[in-house]
């Protein structure tokens, strides 16, 4: 067991897979010499050399396009898009090409690739470097969507993503890079599409993702002191979606909240809520409530950004008011 930061776990996960499989390559802007603008890929150039760890021009379409062409012809590339906001500049390749090609070719082409990207707010970067866009990816058939909340999951889910035969969008949260967590020794390989119960409880279920998981856990701690027992589920991946863990929890608690960083409309929680409403309506004792960022572009000022993104206080207050 060792304590690693979330950013160290990214490099450790990539290194684990590159050692195991010589078909794994890493490309992106500043990923090699600089070790990544978030310092999530240091040391990889030194260990694996300039062919397997390669800096690209600022050409997002070329980055993900190259990954796609390489994946269909025998490599297993990991492509980094520095900020998830920049996915908009190459969304054609992601949404029209990578996501659809297996289906359009009726299975002739496989695309075992991973697109890693720094997602989410909290760093005061403003509206074009802070978005949570995991719901964009979730909306496109043919993309798997993963978003880890802690260092051990970063390694295990990254390994599972690299080994997956389908394209995976891997959303690292930039507000989590400096956070620490225990990581078991030895090779870590997790399973996509498996949520984790982060804290057990009986009075309500809080479903969260990525940076909202530690906030939901902190809120659960506060609520516990006030006599409210909350179960926290870390979804970990949106596609595949582990609905059984969520539905099982609702059967126990009879109340459901989602904690989402994405803006309100068509956030991932809307789909979770829709499934719950269709499939376990009679288990519910009250309205389902989504706790989200308002439907606004994220502001830069710390005072405003902190108001926008769900906070521990907002989670606590919302749950208390709804359950009262």
């Amino acid at each position, binding site marked *: 067991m060792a304590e690693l930061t979330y950013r160290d776990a990214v490099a450790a996960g990539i290194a684990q897979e590159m050692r195991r499989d010589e078909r794994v390559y890493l490309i992106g802007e500043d990923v090699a010499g600089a070790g990544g603008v978030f310092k999530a890929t240091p040391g990889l150039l030194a260990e694996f050399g300039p062919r397997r760890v390669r800096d*690209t021009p600022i050409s997002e379409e070329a980055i*993900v396009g190259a990954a796609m062409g*390489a994946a269909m012809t025998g490599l297993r590339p990991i492509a980094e898009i520095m900020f998830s906001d920049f996915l908009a500049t190459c969304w054609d390749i992601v949404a029209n090409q990578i996501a659809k090609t*297996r289906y359009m*070719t009726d*299975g002739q082409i*496989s695309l075992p690739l991973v697109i890693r990207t720094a997602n989410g707010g909290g760093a005061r970067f403003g509206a074009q470097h802070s978005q949570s866009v995991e719901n964009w990816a979730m909306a496109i058939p*043919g993309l798997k969507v993963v978003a880890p909340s802690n260092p051990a999951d970063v390694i295990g889910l990254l390994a599972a993503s690299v080994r997956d035969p389908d394209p995976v969008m891997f959303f690292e949260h930039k507000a989590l890079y400096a956070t620490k967590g225990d990581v078991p020794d030895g090779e870590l390989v997790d399973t996509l599409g498996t949520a984790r119960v982060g804290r057990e409880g009986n009075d309500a279920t809080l479903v969260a993702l990525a940076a909202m998981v530690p906030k939901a856990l902190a809120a659960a701690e506060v609520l516990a002191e006030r006599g409210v027992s909350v179960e926290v589920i870390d979804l970990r991946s949106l596609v*595949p979606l582990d609905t059984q863990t969520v539905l099982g929890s609702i059967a126990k608690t009879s109340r459901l909240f989602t904690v989402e960083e994405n803006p309100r409309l068509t956030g991932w929680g809307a789909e979770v809520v829709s499934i719950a409403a269709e499939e376990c309506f009679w288990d519910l004792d009250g309205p389902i409530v989504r706790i989200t960022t308002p439907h606004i572009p994220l502001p830069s000022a710390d005072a405003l950004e902190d108001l926008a993104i769900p906070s521990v206080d907002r989670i606590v207050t919302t749950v208390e008011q709804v359950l009262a």
Partner: protein
Amino acid sequence: MTSTSTPAVEIDQETRLDLYRRMVELRLFEKRAYDLFMEGLVKGTSHLSLGQEAVAAGFGAAMRVDDYTFCTYRGHAHTLSRGTPMARVMGELLGRSNGVTGGKGGSMHLTSVENYAMGSYAIVGAHLPIAAGAAWSAQERGSGQVAVCFFGDGATNIGAFHEALNMAAVWKLPVVFVCENNLYMEYTAIESVTAVANPAADRAAAYGLESIVVDGNDADAVYAIALETLDRARQGAGPSLVEAKTYRHGGHSRADPGKYRPDQEVEEWLDRDPVDTYRERLLAQGIAESALTDIDDDARANVEAATQAAREAPAPGPEVLERNVWADGSATWRN
């Protein structure tokens, strides 16, 4: 500028007959595709290569069997020129289960990986970086394969073109980018929306590449430049950008009669029909007319058989609708 109209290489008779055969098959196939549209059997849209056959034939004949082809929605000819069975392409146009993708892709997404036809891409310019990626993979695997990427003149004004050219040049990738300049981007003259006269070739210098213009209606010239650029890529000398000047006989797509083109321009290009002029050249070189007529007859029979097979093939059934989103064959996104 390299401008090839007389080939630098000697082309033997067997290759010339092969080039002629390819062009005749593509011509007759596309004519049949047009007829089937008019009959209402081909739905959606379709973009024919009538008039542009020499580009697909010249490269198809020059490529190694395992070189990769990436093409556009105007991709019937390029897919066929890699040896993809005609019946399976025709079946795809008709939305039948015998189609190359079983009806999933349609006219704009013909793909036959077993023939190294790695897909027809229907968003302008998108496949240039993808072809570069396949070339990158070939380079890393040391396979000696080259990726050939065909696109229209309109693609030279989109960002992906420039991103791909730059990265391919920096990484010295084994890829040949082939611009089929048919003078019109959809319904608009390319010269009216482009800052340079040769939309691809005049941009080559920006990426440290040689400016290459070839007569895209001359199968020998295309074949020669294909051999040269493929060899350069295979030797590790990096990418090439070829601009092949050609002309489509019809409109942009099914619904377009192409009336925006001056009559005289159309006539001049019809006089330079790549199939007719090549036939005349072969006859002038002493090839017996009967040899060419045999090829014509075979091609006609092949198109007829392919049409028959496609007409008789059943439509895809509901069991394939949710098949092959994922590698496990399913479309499952939840438990």
